[in-house]
């Protein structure tokens, strides 16, 4: 057999060989070549800044890692959600009798099976949610508000029976005109989606307010914007549109739920936040949070889209009705049509500058599509639009607007990419008109420590300036770009980064290793980043820490894996746990040596006592039981707030002038990571964010027909970049330590998605002389712009 021949061939020939069957020296050579960072990096720490193999890595390259859809339980039923074919319709009646009669069908649910929710606002750590809206999103009540909106669900013995049954459910709809675009939805005569939505401003609704698609208004001002523009020698004012786009994680949503006979509910799920799922599920099915246990499975990408619940409450009710575990898996069309997206937008940005290249005033008007229910990231959008610059006088006005699209959700620096596209393109046009270098202009106007943002607060130490300087000084920016129809563009982006709450527990094992239990679900290698901070603090190796993500019954409250917060905040919790361990180790050593604990100190992985007494961590770990029980360190973090994250990008493109197609030739990103814990995964976040940004810039969009039906709900026609569409993404990690973290960590996950659309738009202009102000900058649009030139 061929298989056997291969297997034999791979078997290592002798004991001197490493895992991969190569002598150690040769293996190091390969590693060097795989790893992209320069070998000359200076090292302040022993573990931080190194590139250990991630602890969950072998499971993930062998297929052993268990994701949500891999859950297999005895007696498990399979469910299917029936979804609305209409973008906007009244649901007059639902007849489930034919489906219920199909052999193998075990239960059917509709919104009638869910407890009524008042419009109570519940704080979910990362944001507040109106429970009535969340419930109506999970299962449509009296109206379907977007194509794909859940209307009913079936659990059956097999997925095929469940699918057949779902087709037998008869729903009587009264179609209503769909409202698909933000400006149209704001008009007084637009059909209103939700009769309980009125415009709020800073939490207050005007007494005479009518039901409206405009759910919220935000206004920020700084100084006197009119006086500011009066000082300007040049004013550029432009309008921008961006299309609805999806997070595009490869793993569809899933949930497996058992509602046990004792009333306890267990949820197995791929999620960004187990505690958030616990609370949302408990609220929506009407039981105490302590009756819900959420078990985190490995998660196949989230980017903000796996925070809100869709399936767990539905599976829970199906399980309650059947007494069996129920698994619900979305297909790709449902993922596109019913989850995700980040808002489409309309923006008007006006910036004034003096002849010598100083920005003096900014004015922005921004409207985001919230989707079916309020809650777009319009507030951060408003707060980010001018956040990279020191602007004396500015004003920003923003609107959160309901349309018949899926309820929008966070997507990597929510709101910031849209506004960066607008602002950074206007800045590029000012540079062009003034004839100044785009990098120097940004350096001259950069926000820095002490700069007051338009929303009020003053920046602490930030690295905006440093990222622009890193790009300006890069080989890429300094190199000459030659060839027809080629151009270079740069752009900068900002994101806040969140702090929020985390908890960890660390236990010393007798063999000198430490078990680390944490509540932060791991989407991109954060287990290792947290373990490295614990290891650094204890002076042990990263491999000596055994990290594990625990369920909601086994670890303290931990907020979602989002907001670029895990390496920062859960890292602080791990450092705090390590400090507790240090203290206890010192006490044990004192007992063992029979000396006073005040004479013992913990130093770089060693426990040092009087008279040259010392233990290594492992030596002491082996003896701790002689003088006591387990050593357990606890750590939490809650108060710390991160400083902001900045990144500056440089891209070279080539535009086909006949077709309008844009090829990315070269891409460099410089980003402030504070302190890079595991540089490979910092680079990975930067590279991944850039390529998502490239997709958003060039081809990704929800394409709707006139009935409000998404025509491209597949990975064939919703075109995320393939590896054949992009070059290597060169990374420059800038390190301006964040004073709020013991090792200076800044979150790196989100901000890299912000600059690409603007950088590419600016490069397209440099290449063929057209300004693109409408995302995506797909070939037909670029071609039309070139032909109209």
């Amino acid at each position: 057999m061929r298989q056997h021949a291969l297997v034999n061939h791979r078997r290592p020939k002798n004991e001197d060989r490493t895992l991969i069957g190569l002598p150690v020296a040769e293996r190091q050579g390969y590693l060097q070549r795989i790893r992209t960072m320069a070998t000359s990096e200076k090292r302040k720490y022993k573990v931080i800044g190194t590139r250990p193999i991630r602890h969950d890595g072998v499971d993930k390259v062998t297929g052993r890692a268990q994701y949500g859809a891999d859950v297999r339980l005895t007696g498990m039923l399979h469910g299917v959600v029936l979804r609305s074919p209409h973008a906007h319709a009244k649901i007059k009646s639902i007849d489930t009798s034919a489906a219920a009669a199909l052999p193998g069908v075990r239960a059917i649910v509709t919104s009638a099976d869910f407890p009524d929710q008042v419009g109570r606002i519940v704080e979910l750590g990362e944001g507040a949610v109106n429970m009535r809206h969340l419930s109506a999103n999970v299962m449509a009540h009296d109206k379907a508000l977007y194509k794909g909106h859940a209307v009913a669900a079936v659990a059956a013995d097999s997925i095929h029976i469940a699918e057949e049954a779902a087709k037998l459910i008869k729903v009587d709809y009264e179609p209503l005109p769909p409202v698909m675009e933000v400006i149209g939805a704001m008009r007084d005569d637009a059909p209103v989606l939700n009769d309980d939505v009125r415009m709020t401003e800073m939490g207050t609704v005007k007494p005479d307010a009518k039901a409206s698609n405009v759910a919220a208004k935000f206004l920020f001002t700084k100084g006197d914007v009119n006086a500011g523009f009066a000082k300007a020698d040049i004013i550029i004012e432009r309008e921008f549109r961006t299309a609805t786009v999806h997070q595009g994680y490869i793993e569809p949503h899933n949930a497996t739920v058992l509602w046990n006979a004792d009333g306890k509910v267990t949820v197995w799920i791929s999620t960004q936040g187990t505690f958030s799922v616990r609370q949302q599920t408990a609220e929506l099915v009407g039981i105490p949070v302590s009756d819900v246990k959420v078990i985190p499975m490995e998660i196949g990408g989230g980017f903000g889209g796996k925070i809100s619940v869709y399936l767990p409450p539905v599976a829970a009710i199906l399980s309650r009705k059947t007494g069996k575990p129920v698994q619900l898996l979305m297909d790709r069309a449902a993922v596109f049509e019913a989850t995700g997206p980040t808002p489409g937008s309309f923006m008007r940005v006006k910036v004034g500058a003096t002849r010598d290249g100083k920005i003096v005033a900014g004015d922005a008007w921004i409207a985001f599509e919230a989707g079916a229910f309020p809650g777009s990231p319009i507030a951060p959008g408003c707060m980010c639009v001018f956040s990279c610059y020191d602007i004396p006088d500015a004003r920003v006005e923003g609107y959160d607007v309901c349309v018949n699209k899926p309820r929008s959700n966070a997507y990597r620096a929510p709101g910031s990419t849209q506004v960066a596209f607008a602002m950074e393109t206007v800045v590029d046009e000012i540079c062009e008109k003034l004839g100044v270098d785009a990098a120097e202009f940004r350096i001259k106007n950069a926000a820095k420590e002490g700069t007051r943002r338009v929303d009020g607060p003053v920046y602490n130490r930030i690295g905006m300036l440093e990222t622009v300087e890193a790009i300006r000084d890069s080989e890429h920016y300094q190199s000459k770009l030659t060839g027809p129809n080629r151009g270079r563009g740069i752009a900068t982006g900002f994101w806040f980064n969140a702090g929020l709450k985390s908890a960890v527990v660390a236990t010393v094992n007798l063999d000198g290793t430490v078990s680390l239990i944490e509540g932060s679900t791991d989407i991109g290698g954060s287990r290792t980043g947290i373990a490295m901070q614990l290891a650094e603090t204890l002076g042990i190796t990263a491999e000596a820490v055994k990290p594990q993500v625990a369920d909601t019954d086994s670890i303290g409250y931990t907020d979602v894996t989002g907001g670029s917060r895990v390496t920062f905040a859960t890292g602080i919790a791990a450092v705090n746990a390590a400090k507790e361990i240090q203290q206890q180790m010192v006490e044990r050593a004192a007992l063992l040596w029979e000396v006073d604990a005040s004479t013992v100190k913990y130093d770089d992985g060693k426990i040092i006592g009087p008279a040259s007494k010392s233990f290594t961590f492992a030596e002491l770990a082996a003896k701790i039981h002689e003088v006591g029980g387990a050593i357990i360190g606890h750590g939490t973090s809650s108060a710390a707030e991160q400083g902001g994250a900045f990144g500056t990008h440089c891209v070279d493109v080539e535009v086909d002038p006949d077709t309008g197609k844009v090829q990315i030739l070269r891409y460099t990103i410089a980003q402030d990571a504070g302190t890079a814990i595991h540089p490979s995964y910092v680079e990975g976040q930067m590279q991944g964010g850039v390529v998502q940004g490239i997709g958003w810039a060039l081809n990704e969009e929800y394409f709707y027909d006139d009935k409000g039906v998404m025509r491209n709900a597949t990975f064939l026609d919703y075109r995320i970049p393939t590896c054949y569409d992009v070059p290597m993404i060169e990374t420059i990690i800038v390190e301006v330590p964040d004073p709020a973290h013991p090792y200076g960590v800044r979150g790196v996950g989100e901000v890299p998605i912000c600059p690409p659309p603007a950088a590419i738009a600016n490069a397209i202009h440099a290449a063929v002389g057209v300004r693109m102000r409408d995302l995506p900058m797909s070939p037909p649009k670029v071609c039309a712009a070139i032909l109209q030139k």
Partner: protein
Amino acid sequence: MRDFDYAAPTTLADAVTLLSRGNGAARPLAGGTDLIDHVRTGRLAPDTVVDIKKIAELNVLEAGPTGLRLGAAVPCYRVYGHAAIVSDYSALADSGHIIGGVQIQSRASFGGNVCNSGPAADSTPSLIALGAMCVIAGPKGTREVPAEEFCTGPGKNVLQPGELLVEFRMPAPAKNSGSHYRRFIPRNEMDIAVVSVAASVTLDDAKQKIIAARISLGAVAPKPLLATDAAAVLIGQSPTDDVLAKAADAARKIATPITDMRGTAEYRTHLVGVLVTRVVQAAVTRAKGEKLDYRPGH
């Protein structure tokens, strides 16, 4: 997925019997890369799926002095992995290389692609440009239909109930001939053609003037088109910019594209001209025996 029966006949006669008996509710399965998706999404609802990959006649792949025989179920990877196809029927290799990703090419066949009869099918224009005949077996025997007449509209073709596409036959290439297929897509791979063009040209002995040409257009009409007038413009001419522009104009005239999520009618018509120019140029380069500098998607 909807329930269905499965049969895997080993002879053409059995396959025809099974397909005839199904009274339209039996569908042939070659690579399955469209069929299985269509059954899953409910666009097709066969009662029986007839796997035709075990039939020898549908797997034939022979290039000889009399031309090329390409079995309808031969997967793409065998097409572009065949040395004679790469050198003498290059447009077929170009098509096979960009139908889906490599995984799809392991299974998808030209026969299946043509029988799905999508206006944007990547194999059909190449077959038309190379003058392929479609050999069809059915309850009443065997018949042949030129590739440009096989499709009759979106998802529609000349196959009658019980009939099965068996193979494509193409004449041996003339001396100094070359062919190329290219499509325009927004990404560089994994996409459906916004517009596609295949061309085959034959040059005179001096390799200066075009003495024969066939051009086919995809995704600009209800079915792939043979652009007779555009080809006629080239005959007796050197492929100068001016001549190519005239051919492009002639091709644009027969394009009647629709506006959909992949492009507007105006944009598609514009692209027809761009692609005809580029594809004819590329075919000429190959006809001269020169290496074509071409990366799919670029």
